[in-house]
């Protein structure tokens, strides 16, 4: 649920990278920080334990000001993937406006992916998010590895689902922007009715995405 702060004319949109442990959520965020050419790009706040596991969350603040003077601020979070941190995951997921589910493509991880996705669905319910109306993208990460699930199989598996599926190698940045783009499309549509981006702020979907991403050319 995006928060509009009238006093500062600021709209804060919360995006969350969800998924099983070690699937590459933090890596996604780090690449976004590297690649994105947003007007306002804050420091990436990474809170990890000694062995590369996210303890609380990671946060990348981004933003731009529309011609109408509205500051649209994006807070992009990752959740801790480990099963034990469920309360933290719930707190971070709370009020999310969009979610990227980062799945691990390795064949050995299919059960973890499924459990984590189920956990996302459960937690969304617990924090009062209407899961069916939630902007969501499924990202299959680590496409560079061997022993991974084939793209055909992934497409077949998610054929019936309403969410777009993307493929990525977050380590070298492949597919990271495409994923965010797919999410932003949905987020724009979901928030446009309430905040009247086009009518009030003359902000089209394309502009909304471009202002955040910059002149990135999709490969």
């Amino acid at each position, binding site marked *: 649920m995006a928060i*509009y702060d*009238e006093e500062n004319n600021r709209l804060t949109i919360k995006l969350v990278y969800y998924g099983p442990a070690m699937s590459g959520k933090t890596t996604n965020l780090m690449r976004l920080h590297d690649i994105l050419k947003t007007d306002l790009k*804050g*420091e990436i*706040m990474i*809170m990890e334990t000694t062995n590369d596991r996210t303890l609380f969350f990671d946060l990348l603040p981004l933003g731009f000001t529309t011609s109408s003077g509205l500051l649209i601020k994006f807070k992009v979070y990752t959740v801790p993937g480990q099963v034990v941190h469920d*309360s*933290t995951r719930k707190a971070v997921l709370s009020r999310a406006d969009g979610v990227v589910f980062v799945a691990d493509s390795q064949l050995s991880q299919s059960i973890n992916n499924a459990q984590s996705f189920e956990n996302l669905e459960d937690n969304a319910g617990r924090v009062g998010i209407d899961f069916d109306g939630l902007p969501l993208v499924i990202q299959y990460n680590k496409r560079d590895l061997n022993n991974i699930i084939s793209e055909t199989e992934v497409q077949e598996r998610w054929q019936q689902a309403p969410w777009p599926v993307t493929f990525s190698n977050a380590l070298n940045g492949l597919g990271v922007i495409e994923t965010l783009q797919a999410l932003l499309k949905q987020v724009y549509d979901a928030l446009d009715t309430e905040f009247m981006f086009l009518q009030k702020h003359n902000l089209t979907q394309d502009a909304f995405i471009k202002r955040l991403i910059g002149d990135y050319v999709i490969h």
Partner: protein
Amino acid sequence: MTIEQDLSFDHEFTLKELLTGVKTEKLLQALTACLDSPVRILNIKNECLFSSETTDFTAIKPAIKTPIYGELEAIAYLEAHSDQEKLQSAAQLLQLLLYSNSRYLMASDLHIQTQRDDYEELQRRHAALEISQENYKNLAESLDLRVKQQVKTIENAQIKLYENEKLASVGRLAAGVAHEINNPIGFIRSNLSSAQSYLGSFTKLNDAFKADASISYLRQLWQEESLEFLQEDMSDILKESIDGVDRVSAIVKDLKSFSRVNDLAEEDANINEIIRQTCHVSAPQLKDKLQIILDLGDIPHIFCHPAELGQVFLNLILNAADATAEKGKIRFKTQVKESNLSIEIRDTGNGIAESDLPHIFEPFFTTKDVGQGIGLGLTVCLNIIKAHHGSLTIISKQEKGTLVTILLPITHKKD
């Protein structure tokens, strides 16, 4: 959408919040020293939040200001008499401090939030557990009650079976006894019929007398009717009938004690007499299968329930009969041993298996076929002997026989 800013860990922090734990006086002192100028920190509406001076130093000499950024946007201004480069460096330093503090604040707020959520979740689970515990408790209580009711029902059924068992052995006697009574009644009936027909002959003679018949006619009639024979035979059949009636009355007398199995009357009685009576009534039942040998010593009367002790002896005789395949013996021996009355009942039946011995007094334990016994015979015996403050022990060897020893204290009726 405007949402009231709550305690969520990811809310927008104000400058004040970001300076939590920082001593502003010291901060201002440090900034003043670095910039070699008095400093002010303004909010984004240019209102002074903190100042190193008590008076407005910018009124005297114009100062320059530079924004201090939070996550993305300016959240405050730093103002001083300084050059832009120095001021920006100081602002950078301040931003680093704020950034580091925001990291800490978010982590700690998130920690508090999850702790609170976990605690609430725990309380919910605890409440749910308490409800479920209450349900189990209720279930356990009602279960207890239901079990008690069932136990009561079973106990009642057992008491009924136990009472039935007392009568069952008596019932077994009925067939034999009926036969024993039927036999004399048969010949008594036949004798009385003969006597009735004999009476016709005497009536004829009597009529002749009344009609003043001649002596020769009377003599002829006397011979025709064989009245001499009738007289003799009549005497015989009446004697036989009286014997038969005596036999029936003896059986009835013996049986009487058993017809009062539930009679609780206690009296001074002779155990030898009870044994004899029991043997009499059970004799027809045993036919030729079991030979009863009585070795009854000189023993005093004791205060007891004769009917109940009769039941004990009857049960033991019937057990011995059941344990005897073709022909066997049962010997009753009574004597005084120390201050007790000792009754030994030894049979030559097939004995009790060693594995069964520990169970023979348990209610409903039986080795007999279904319908032959419900396994209460010895239980009844033991209970009766215990009620007499006595003891009952059984020694048995398979294929050899069984020895039952009953010891009863010698007591008398208290006046």
